[in-house]
């Protein structure tokens, strides 16, 4: 198993009331799987993705990534793990403004201390079909193009796991379709992919669906 969680709990307190965004989540995802996470708004999908992506630590429960318990590692260790093992794609792209597509894609490799970042970044941008847009800044690109830059950025450190939180949420259906095909081809190369989505068609294209409700996995 690439991912195994045991009874993950994440609580948020809003004044008096306490929200259990994750209320004892245990899931396992094997290497090479393409998994959809579905559920109503507020059911805890993004919170689960944050845990799986080592962006946040659970209040209780364990998370084993590739066999290593990462649920209580210090933050800079987690940054290293994210950098090496995990690629992220967000609904709102989260590219850095004022940097060209190429520089955005190079960044994760700089933190990994890789040589020839430029060459690898150029190849990644070619793969996502942006060979002609490398010098553009995100502000001068369409939503679909930005998301493809984000996919290229998620790829460059050759991560075992790609986490996509509503990657097509801000795109029209045609561009969303293009991004999905990209993710499918990455999955075909053996990468494990987890996609949060509200779109039933997209969920149907994944090998497996995890349905959440009120912080729990219901199926």
């Amino acid at each position: 198993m690439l991912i195994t969680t045991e009874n993950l709990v994440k609580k948020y307190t809003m004044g008096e009331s306490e929200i259990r965004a994750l209320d004892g989540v245990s899931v396992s995802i094997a290497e090479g799987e393409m998994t959809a996470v579905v559920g109503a708004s507020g059911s805890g999908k993004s919170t689960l993705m944050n845990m799986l992506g080592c962006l946040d630590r659970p209040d209780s429960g364990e998370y084993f990534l590739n066999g290593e318990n990462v649920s209580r590692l210090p933050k800079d260790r987690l940054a290293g793990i994210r950098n090496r093992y995990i690629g992220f794609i967000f609904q709102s792209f989260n590219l850095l403004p004022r940097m060209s597509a190429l520089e955005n894609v190079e960044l994760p490799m700089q933190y990994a201390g890789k040589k020839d970042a430029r060459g690898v970044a150029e190849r990644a941008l070619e793969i996502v079909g942006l060979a002609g847009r490398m010098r553009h800044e995100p502000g001068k690109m369409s939503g679909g193009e930005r998301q493809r830059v984000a996919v290229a950025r998620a790829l460059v450190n050759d991560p075992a796991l790609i986490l996509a939180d509503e990657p097509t949420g801000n795109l029209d259906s045609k561009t969303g379709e293009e991004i999905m095909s990209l993710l499918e081809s990455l999955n075909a190369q053996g990468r494990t992919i987890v996609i949060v989505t509200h779109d039933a068609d997209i969920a149907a294209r994944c090998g497996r669906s995890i349905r959440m409700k009120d912080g729990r996995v219901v199926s």
Partner: protein
Amino acid sequence: MKSHIKLGTRNLTRRRGRSMLTIMGVALAIGFTVGLLSISEGFMSALDGMLTGSGPDLFVRPKGGSKMPFGMQGNAMLDADLLPIVRGIPGVEFVEPIYQAFSVDGGSTGFGPMMTMVSGMPADDFFKIRPTASIARGRFFSNDDGAVVVLGGVVAENTGKDVGDKLELISGRKLEVIGIMEKTDEPFDYFAYSPIASLQKIFRDSGRVSYFLVKASAEAGPESVSEKLSKAFPHLDVQTVRELIAEAKKMLSMARAVHFGVSCFALVIGVLFVACTMVMSVSERIREFATLRVIGASKGFVIRMILAESIILSVVGGALGCCIGVALSKLIDLLIGYFVGETFMSALVSPRIFAVGILISVLIGAFAGLLPAAMIMRRNIADSLRYE
């Protein structure tokens, strides 16, 4: 490639207007500090220069006058007959009796006419006591010259007088300029010299002198001679040039303490200025910093990036400030020149002052960057990604 520096500069150029305003603020703070520093530095080094200069090293004068010998009131209260007694004190190499007169002829300052001090003295030992002095034009006076005067280099410049012109004393009597001395950057540039006998005659004051200038022998040194003179003339005031300069330095350090306080104030405002800009700039980019952390940037990287941005902002201001400071000190020099004529004190712009200016701006930047860096570090990545 130092990508945190690159990211920092990029962001600064993005918000050009705001960055420029901040840079101007820092530039003014640093400029002010550097300007004040170079002025007091210049004054201090001018005073130190006087210590190593040639010339007399002791004054013997009546008690109770002004501390500075040059502005002495109640002229000519000493008996000229004291001269051989002073000369007889062991360790005294030369003694010059001085009869002090004043002129406001020629030249002017923002405050009014330029004042020239005319020292009546014997010609004998002038060049022995002041080995670096020399005559540029005309000649030096001899003891039996009449109403003549020799001008120090700066006096000649300030009054615009040359050989053959007349210099009018405050009393109305005119002295003929017979010589101009070379400018040497020593105190005697700032005086005019006449035969003592003719000044005493003009003021009908024969047998009286204003003060004695004493040169101690190299073996005895001014301090020991000063002690002996004080003992021999308890009713007179004996002061070494060293003491006089120490006195002047003391006054200057008080001024310096005020400068320091004002500068600190300016620098604190500089820190607040940069900190304010950085807090704004960082709050706008909470999602960006979170994104950097998501793709693997360490905490240290993000802190360095914020500090780099803050330091670059502040150092650009600091460099500009150094230039403003130099301009400011030159301006003050000009103003001093305009109001009091040329003086031996002028601002000193040394590389050391630039180094201090830049160092201070680095510190301003580092301090100012700490708060926004801490602000970002306190945030949770997952929360920051949701931040609108």
